[in-house]
């Protein structure tokens, strides 16, 4: 069993190259298109005096990094979620993790006195953890994944309702948080990126360690237990990773939908269902999706910009329907 056949390696490299191309285009296009030469020069010989260099390095590059991070986190979170729930349609949204994180951020910012934007990551993590705990307590130790998925849907709906309630009561707050709630990279901050980085790295390590278990778990929970897998520990660690990844991405860009669902499935189309390839590939694909989506969001209605979350939803929803129809057939 060789880990990397040449074909697989080439496929992974193609993804990396595509991501690099998308990244450079992300730097070039925007409210104002820049020349290729300026983008390249700003990247290699940065001149602080030049306004165009400033656009590239101070405005677009941080946003590009945020897009890559968020996309990678969502792609990996979706893959882990699908593996652990034995449900190919699972994503962090389905588990209520995104809604929980969003609710805590909204409630924290609007209700807590003396709040600052710097609190967002912690609120998001707290929300993601609370939502995941509710889901896990509901699902109990039942090996049947249906209960896990159902309790995820219920908890997600509950937190969305609570968020709507707060926002309807507080019109002024709704105006400020409106854009954030549909998922946007326009408000990303260096602080949020640095605060969430260690958590995302930790989650990545958990994902790598769990690759053999994720593959074994494709047999189902009972056969996996027979092979000596500690189901409880596997579920806990994987869901912890999902919570950290989803919480981080919500903290940076708000709840961006569908990437967690679509990225693993594009990965499955290319690499099959082997998690040795899906775990490295899905973050690449997720990053590619969000970088491209964010570029479209900024270019489509120039000089205004759409929300990244809207673009990913517009592209993701038809793909989701396609996936469901293919399964029903």
């Amino acid at each position, binding site marked *: *069993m060789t*880990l990397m056949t040449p074909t697989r390696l080439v496929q992974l490299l193609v993804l990396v190259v595509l991501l690099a191309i998308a990244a450079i285009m992300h730097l070039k296009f925007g409210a104002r298109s820049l020349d290729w030469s300026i983008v390249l020069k700003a990247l290699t010989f940065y001149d602080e005096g030049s306004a165009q260099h400033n656009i590239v390095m101070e405005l677009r590059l941080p946003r590009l990094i945020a897009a890559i991070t968020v996309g990678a986190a969502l792609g990996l979170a979706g893959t882990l979620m699908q593996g652990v729930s034995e449900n*190919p349609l699972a994503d962090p949204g389905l588990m209520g993790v995104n809604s929980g994180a969003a609710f805590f951020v909204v409630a924290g910012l609007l209700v807590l006195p003396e709040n600052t934007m710097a609190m967002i990551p912690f609120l998001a993590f707290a929300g993601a953890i609370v939502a995941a705990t509710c889901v896990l307590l509901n699902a109990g130790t039942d090996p049947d994944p249906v209960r896990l998925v159902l309790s995820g849907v219920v908890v997600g709906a509950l937190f969305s309702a609570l968020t709507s309630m707060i926002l309807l009561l507080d019109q002024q707050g709704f105006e400020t948080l409106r854009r954030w709630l549909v998922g946007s990279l326009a408000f990303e901050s260096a602080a949020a990126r640095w605060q969430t980085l260690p958590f995302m790295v930790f989650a990545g390590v958990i994902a*790598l*360690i769990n*690759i*053999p*278990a994720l*593959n*074994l778990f*494709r*047999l*189902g929970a*009972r*056969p996996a*237990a*027979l*092979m*000596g*897998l*500690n189901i409880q520990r596997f579920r806990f660690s994987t869901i912890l990773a999902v919570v950290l990844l989803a919480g981080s991405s919500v903290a940076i860009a708000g709840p961006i939908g569908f990437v967690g669902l679509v990225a693993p499935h594009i990965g*499955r189309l290319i690499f*099959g*269902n*082997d998690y040795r390839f899906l775990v490295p590939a899905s973050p690449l694909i997720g990053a590619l999706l969000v970088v491209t989506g964010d570029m479209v969001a900024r270019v489509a209605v120039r000089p205004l910009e759409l929300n990244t979350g809207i673009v990913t939803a517009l592209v993701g929803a038809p793909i989701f329907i396609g996936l469901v129809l293919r399964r029903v057939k």
Partner: protein
Amino acid sequence: MRWVRQERRCTSVIQITIQTLRTRLVKGVHEFMFSISGLDAYRDAAHILHDIELTIPTGRFTALIGPNGSGKSTLMATMAGMMTPRRGSLTLDEKPVSTYSKRELARLVSFLPQQVQTPAGMNVRELLVQGRFPWRGWMGGWTATDEKAVTDAASLCEIEQLIDRPLANLSGGQLQRAWIAMTLAQDTPTLLLDEPTTFLDIANQLSLLDLLATLRDAGRTVVAILHDLNQAARYADFLVMMRDGRIVAQGETSDIFNDANIEDVFGVRSRTIIDPATGDRICIQSSRQS
């Protein structure tokens, strides 16, 4: 072609025998692989197993027989550590099963349950690879031993030609062979199989039972739930007869495979005759009315 395969099967068996003997030399061998005493088990509120006293001899082929709902599957699941008994003791290699870690247990006992759903989008090789899970390190490194266990298991079950086929494209018999190959790749001294011959045609049933006998000859302990009484009598060295969650009879096949026990366990009348060609016992059943 046929004898080439047979020969390969023999070499694999010899290699496995050497492995098994080596582990035995290191560990010492006990007469009974499993010892069960005063065991009661429940599924939710239902009391399934009553006061089970049972010993499974090491290195032999034991068949569990009994009518539907007699508790055979529950007993096997309990032996595999999938269910916790309410009362009583259950030891494997003279150590209580509950004291083994899941991984240790999976290195000693492999269990093929009756209903296993076919995982989506997996090929035969990927399935066999999962059988090595209990032996792999924390990052899942793949060693030459792992590779050899998978190839040996595939050749024993004669599925080398199917190794790259998706599981969804296999016939029922091939799929069953693939699952058994996975439990063989697990390379455990003890195999538990819940109705392995169900869904197989007669030729495949016999070749599977031959394979189990081969594994027994190679030193493994085989325990299987079988429905066909004559197959059980012919292949098993040791029989365990169950009814209503209790053990009615256990012992050497030649001692307990008789009309009285069969009538007691299954509630059917029978005549046992000796096959003039092989000397095996054959049982002919008739319903109570006739």
